[in-house]
C-alpha cells in the first residue's frame, strides 16, 4: 500500500467518525445517559420525601420481590409485587396472542389485494395513530362503561337484563391494549406476507397438503420473522403500558408501568422505582434476544437475515 493511499484511508476513517458524531452524541446523552442515572439511582437509599440519599443501598433491588416487615424488620415475599408482575406478563402475552389472531387475517387480506389498493388499506390501519392515545383509551372506556355502547346494545337485544360491569378489570385492559397495539402487529406481518411467494401455496396443495397443513408447514414458517417482529412490537410496549391499565383497569389492576409510577409518586421510593424500571428493561432485552435468535434461525434459509 502506498503512503498516499494510507493517508487517504486514515482521512476517510476520521471523516467517518466525524460524520457519525451527531448519532453518537444522541446515543450517548439521550439514550445511555438517562439509563445510567436510573441504574445509579436504583442502588441508592430512598429519601423521606422522594428523591434519593447518596448512599449505597441494595434495598431498591431487594424491594422488587421482598417486603420488610414494619415491626420486626424481617424480609417476606411481596405477594402484591408478584401479582403485578404476573398480571403484566400474562396480559401482555394475551394482548400479543389476540393481536396476532386478529392481525394475521387482516395482514393477509391487505397483502393479497392488488398492489394499487394495498397502500389505501394500510393507511386505514394506521389512522388510529393520528389520535392521542389518551383520547382513544377514553373512547374505549366510553364503549365499555355501564351505560356505554356494549351494555346498551346488549340490553336492547335482550341478551342481558341489567348492565354488566365491563370496565375496570383485566379484560377491559386487554381489550384496550389489543386495540391500541393491533397496528403494530399488522404492519410487520403485512411486510412478511407481501414478500411471501404465493406460488408456494399451489406447490403445497399439489404435494397433498391440506389447507391446515399449508398454513402450518408452509405459510407460518416462512412468515415467521414477521410474526416474531410483530409480537415483540406488541409485547414490549404492552409490558410497560401505563395509560391503558390506568384508565381501563381503574387503579386497582396495576401493571408494572403503573407500579413504577407509584414509586416515583405517592410511594416516594425512587430506588425501588428505578430498580423496577431496570427489571422491565431486562425482561425486554431477554425478549429481544429471543427475537434475534428466532429470526436468525428462520432467516438462514432465505439467504438474508
Amino acid at each position, binding site marked *: 500500500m502506498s503512503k498516499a493511499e494510507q493517508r487517504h484511508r486514515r482521512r476517510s476513517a476520521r471523516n467517518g467518525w466525524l460524520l457519525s458524531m451527531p448519532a453518537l452524541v444522541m446515543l450517548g446523552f439521550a439514550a445511555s445517559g438517562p439509563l445510567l442515572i436510573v441504574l445509579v439511582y436504583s442502588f441508592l437509599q430512598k429519601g423521606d420525601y422522594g428523591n434519593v440519599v447518596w448512599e449505597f443501598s441494595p434495598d431498591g433491588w431487594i424491594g422488587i420481590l421482598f417486603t420488610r416487615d414494619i415491626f420486626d424488620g424481617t424480609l417476606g415475599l411481596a405477594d402484591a409485587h408478584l401479582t403485578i408482575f404476573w398480571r403484566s406478563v400474562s396480559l401482555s402475552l394475551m394482548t400479543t396472542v389476540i393481536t396476532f389472531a386478529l392481525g394475521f387475517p387482516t395482514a393477509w387480506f391487505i397483502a393479497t389485494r392488488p398492489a394499487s389498493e394495498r397502500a389505501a388499506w394500510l393507511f386505514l390501519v394506521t389512522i388510529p395513530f393520528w389520535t392521542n392515545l389518551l383520547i382513544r383509551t377514553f373512547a374505549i372506556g366510553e364503549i365499555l362503561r355501564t351505560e356505554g355502547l356494549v351494555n346498551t346494545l346488549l340490553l336492547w337485544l335482550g341478551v342481558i337484563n341489567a348492565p354488566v360491569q365491563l370496565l375496570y378489570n383485566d379484560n377491559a385492559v386487554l381489550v384496550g391494549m389489543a386495540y391500541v397495539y393491533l397496528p403494530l402487529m399488522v404492519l410487520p406481518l403485512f411486510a412478511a406476507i407481501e414478500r411471501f411467494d404465493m406460488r408456494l401455496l399451489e406447490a403445497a396443495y*399439489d404435494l397433498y397438503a391440506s389447507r391446515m397443513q399449508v398454513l402450518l408447514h*408452509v405459510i407460518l414458517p416462512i412468515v415467521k420473522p414477521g410474526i416474531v417482529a410483530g409480537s415483540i412490537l406488541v409485547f414490549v410496549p404492552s409490558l410497560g403500558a401505563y395509560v391503558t391499565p390506568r384508565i381501563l383497569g381503574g387503579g386497582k389492576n396495576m401493571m408494572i408501568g403503573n407500579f413504577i409510577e407509584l414509586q416515583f409518586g405517592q410511594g416516594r421510593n425512587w430506588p425501588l422505582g428505578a430498580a423496577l424500571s431496570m427489571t422491565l428493561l431486562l425482561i425486554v432485552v431477554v425478549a429481544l434476544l429471543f427475537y434475534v435468535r428466532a429470526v436468525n434461525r428462520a432467516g438462514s434459509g432465505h439467504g438474508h437475515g
Partner: protein
Amino acid sequence: MMKTGRLRLVEENAIEAQSIVKAFGQGKSALLALDDVSVSIRKGEFFTLLGPSGCGKTTLLRLMAGFEMPTAGTIRLDGQDVTYLPPNRRPVNTVFQSYALFPHLTVRENIGFSLKMQGRAKAEIAECTDRMLALVKMEDLAERKTAQLSGGQQQRVALARALAPQPKVLLLDEPLSALDLKLRKEMQIELKRLQKETGITFVFVTHDQEEALTMSDRIAVMNAGRLQQVAAPREIYTAPVNRFVASFIGETNFLNVTPAPGGFRLGNGEIVTAEGSGGVLTVRPEQVRIVSAEGAALTGTVDSLVYFGTDMHCHVRLGDGEALTVRLPLPPCGEAGVSPGDRVGIAFQPGATRLIEA
C-alpha cells in the same frame, strides 16, 4: 384376452381431457382460454403440449393439476372423473416453471414434503427421499437450503419433489425455460432418462418446438385455445395438417398453387405433384436444392444469404415474386457457391412437397 372397450380405455389412457372449455371472466369480456379441447394421453407416454404463449397450453395443464376448474368438460385420470377434485386429492404432481421450492426447507425436506403431508412413517420418508436424491444425483447437497442451489440443481430438486409421491402423471410447466442453452440440453436428456426409469406419464408444456420434437413421444400443437394437431414428432414435422402447425414447427415455404391436370400449377406455370389437398404447397427449406438455372423448370434470383454455421439459408425470389428459403449444406470451406444476384434453378426433393388448406 378380450376386454370391453371401456376397460381397455381405462388401461391405456393415463389422463383424458374431454370437450374442455375454459373461460376467464364473464359475459362479453370473457376470454376463452380453451375452446372445446379433447385429448387423451397414454400411459407411460412423454406427451408435449406445444404452442405460442397464450395458446392455452398452461391452462390445460393447470386444469389437469386441479388449480383451475373447467367451464365445461371433464378430466379423467386413470378412467376416474377428477374434474372438480382439488389438487391435494389428485395423484398428479407438477414441476413449476418457477420451481416453487420451499425456501425454509432443505433439499431433503423439500423432496420428502408430500410424503410427510400424507402422514407416511419417518423411515419410509427417509428411504424414499434417499432414492429420489440418488435418482436426480443430488445426494451431496441433501442438507442444503434451496436458495443456495444453482438453477439446474433447483430444477433437479423440483423434479425429485414432484416424483417422490409416485404420481400417476407428472405435469411439467415449461420447466427448462429458465435455464441457459447448455444446461437446457443436459436437462432434456435428464428428463428423458427420468421418464424411462420411472415409467411415469409425463405431460410437458413448452413453446420451444425443438424441445418438443426431440423429447416427445407425441405432441399436441395448440393455438388460440384450440388443438391443432396431435401426432408423433415425425408426423407433426413431415405432415402438418394446417398452415399454423407447418409454420410453428420448423421453417416452411408456402407457395400458392392451383389444381391442374397431372398435379398442381405454381405461379410461374410449372406443374408439381404433391400429397394432401388444399391450395397451398409446403416444402421445408432443407428439402429444396439449388441447381443450375439451365434447363431448370423453376428459376429465381438469390436475394440474400444468412450464415448459420451448420448451413446457409438462401432466400430466393421466384419469377412470380414469391419468396422461397433454401437451406444449403455447407462444404468444409464454408462457402455456399452462390452469391446474391445469382440466377439459380430450384428443385424439390421427391416427395417433399405437401398440400395444406390455405
